[in-house]
């Protein structure tokens, strides 16, 4: 694909993949997502991780659409080249605009995000990397989910719980000033899609995950009466 490559302009370099903007294809700008070689990984391991993620991502991006969640249109999947050619979604990355939004806007945005994540979960898709860097708000006020590189097809409550836990965790590390209000509205939207019962079960799961191993906080232990000082 040498001739195609020449027209490429790199627009972003993530940790996992590089994104290139190809000027025009059938009159539209094309986003090229290439999982480049990781020199620090053993090549055998590296190749299998990259190929698996390329195929998987393309498949899940398609399934998300069936669940009513906006994702880029896929034009071509080049498996040996570990590259996906897809629609370039024009809009703003939510992570970048969040600080400038008024509170009520932020809350309604997170309610919608929660609802969309609920739709994904209902369809058996767990995103695996729910961060505001992976969500784009278009001019037409649509929320696009763009990175399904770590997504999984599963209906396990555990996996869904981890998904929401990661969302909460991301909010606390990146948007700590208003993490709580955002997560509460997120859950409200999520409940709208998943229903009261399933949501309660998953929230219980988040608590369980946070109580596990590294996530236990001091307070909970002291309340349990354990760990009393000598």
């Amino acid at each position, binding site marked *: 694909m040498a001739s195609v490559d020449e027209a490429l302009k790199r627009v972003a370099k993530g940790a996992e993949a590089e994104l290139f903007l190809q000027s025009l294809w059938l009159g539209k700008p094309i986003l090229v997502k290439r999982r480049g070689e990781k020199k620090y990984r053993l090549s055998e391991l590296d190749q299998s991780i990259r190929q698996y993620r390329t195929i998987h991502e393309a498949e899940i991006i398609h399934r998300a659409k069936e669940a009513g969640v906006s994702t880029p249109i896929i034009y071509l999947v080049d498996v040996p080249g570990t590259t996906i050619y897809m629609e370039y979604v024009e809009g703003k990355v939510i992570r970048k605009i969040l600080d400038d939004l008024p509170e009520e806007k932020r809350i309604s945005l997170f309610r919608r995000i929660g609802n969309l994540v609920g739709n994904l979960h209902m369809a058996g898709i767990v995103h695996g990397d729910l961060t505001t860097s992976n969500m784009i708000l278009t001019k037409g006020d649509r929320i696009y989910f763009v990175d399904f590189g770590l997504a999984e097809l599963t209906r396990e409550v555990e996996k869904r719980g981890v998904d929401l836990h990661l969302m909460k965790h991301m909010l606390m*590390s990146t948007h700590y000033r208003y993490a709580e209000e955002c997560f509460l509205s997120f859950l409200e939207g999520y409940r709208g899609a998943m229903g009261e019962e399933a949501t309660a079960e998953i929230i219980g799961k988040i608590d369980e995950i946070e109580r596990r*191993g590294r996530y236990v906080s001091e307070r909970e232990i002291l309340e349990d009466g354990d*760990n009393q*000082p000598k």
Partner: protein
Amino acid sequence: MDEILCLGIESTADDLGVGIATSEGMILANKRSTYIPEKGGIHPREAARHHSAQIGSVLDAALSKAGIGPKDIDVVAFSQGPGMGPCLRTGATVARAVAIYLGVPLVGVNHAVAHIEIGRLAAKAKDPLTLFVSGGNTIVTGYEAGRYRIFGETLDIPVGNCLDVFAREAGLPYPGAPDLERRALEGKRFVPLPYLVKGMDLSFSGLLTSALEKLRSGQWRLEDLCMSIQEVAFSMLGEVTERALAHTGKLELLLTGGVAANKRLQAIMRMIAEEHGAKSYVTPLEYALDNGAMIAWTGLLAYLSGVRIPVSESFIRARWRLDEVEVTWLQ
């Protein structure tokens, strides 16, 4: 202002350490005594018993190494958590006694924060993204707005624990991880093992289980398994660290904790830092392993920024999370 001396006691797990640091950033002493289990892993009560038997001589050794007497100490710091309860209590008890006896203030230090701070001091790094990997911890962290935020961590067992248990089950001599590293160099064939990265977090328990199953099946060369478990575990660490580096845009990458001694992991981190235009640092082994100097130095930083803890409130905090600590000295 005169130089201030802080005595630090570390006792979160199998290592008992006593260090002495000065407010000029000098480490005057860093002495350690390690509990070695007769078989199996660390038994918290046995480790605590070792610590209480050894604390006198380790304290003496640290003071004589520093060339000071007890009366020269201005502050006493101890590792308050996270760690094994019985071990923490032993160190805390000694720290309280020394502080009361000398009539000096007491400071409780978070063990993970101490690893970062001593690494920063040794590397002269300003604002690094830190990968802290040991038998008890697996954390990718960086400073942001008053705290060390956790960008990624293990959802189950720490990476050092995964490697240690595998080495032990494979019958490698104690301590297992260095021997595992040597054997990995002779690995030729990669054995596929579960690679589990969930967002920014990691899971090593499945990797360990699968590697142990393959070990017991007797169908694989031990060297190949050693290489593969290391490659998979470190690639996972690499992936999460790389993402955190890209996400935060930090320009320094600091590797610390016992697993930082692994040359293969060091090489991986160097490559990642280079790729993202960051400088990479490896904490020298003396300060990368659990040690008293890191507690002394961090205790001093906290003390100078106004932190004290009354003896009556100096409970140990066995599950004290890194991101709960207010990093008052960087604000």
